[in-house]
């Protein structure tokens, strides 16, 4: 789980062009949207692309987004839970 979260942080920074950030700047439980990292709706879509590209998991219902992408930890939990449902 920790390794997954560490990887996720690097991938998120790369995918979302958060060039001024380092992985250690992102807390495991830190909210990614609104406050916290201040990501927006397009970032959310890019995270959907990230899930599919790196983890082969498809989030086809955009409404699940806010819950799944709340923090790095919730994303890691989602990935772990859906590992066997790869697309």
């Amino acid at each position, binding site marked *: 789980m920790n390794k997954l979260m560490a990887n996720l942080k690097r991938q998120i920074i790369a995918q*979302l*062009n*958060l*060039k*001024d950030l380092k992985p250690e700047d992102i807390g495991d439980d830190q909210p990614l949207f609104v406050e916290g990292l201040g990501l927006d709706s*397009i*970032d959310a*879509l*890019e995270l959907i*692309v990230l899930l*599919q*590209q790196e983890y082969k998991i498809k989030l086809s219902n955009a409404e699940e987004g806010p819950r799944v992408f709340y923090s790095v930890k919730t994303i890691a939990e989602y990935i772990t839970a859906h590992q066997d449902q790869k697309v």
Partner: protein
Amino acid sequence: MEELYRHFAITYPKFYKMDNLSKLGFLASEVLLSDLPQIKNYRPEEVGVVLSNANSSLDTDIRFYQTVDQLASPALFVYTLPNIVIGEICIRNHFNGENAFFVSEKFDPVLIEQYVNNLINNNILQSCICGWVDYLAPRYEAVLYFVTKESSNPEQELVFNLENIKKIYKEAHE
């Protein structure tokens, strides 16, 4: 351009998400406005942006299209319209005034002069950022003008007419 961004010590993380055209326009506007503290005296509806170029959003169109076969990138698609650069400038500076984007083969000083003078003379705007912002790798160019109704610094200003517009454009290319 990221070097320029760092050189000017701008803190605006959203910069990194922009496409090349928007980065170019954004940087050019930052440089333009850094010398113009009076911009703060205008209300949001009083400032507008009128830009133009030859290549529209082609640089990004190509980059976006290259992602379509794998997984199309929403962040890139957002920038496949030339007027998004205007959006970025307005978001950064809270400008709500009229904005327009024209596509033409070459910089059209007549169009810009007529369009912007009409806006300012009729009080549709009190000031306007206008000019040419074009990007198609490896070439890019940006020439921006800041036009106001009132004169605040006569020594550093020129009348916004065809002759001066052309003169500034020419000097920028020398």
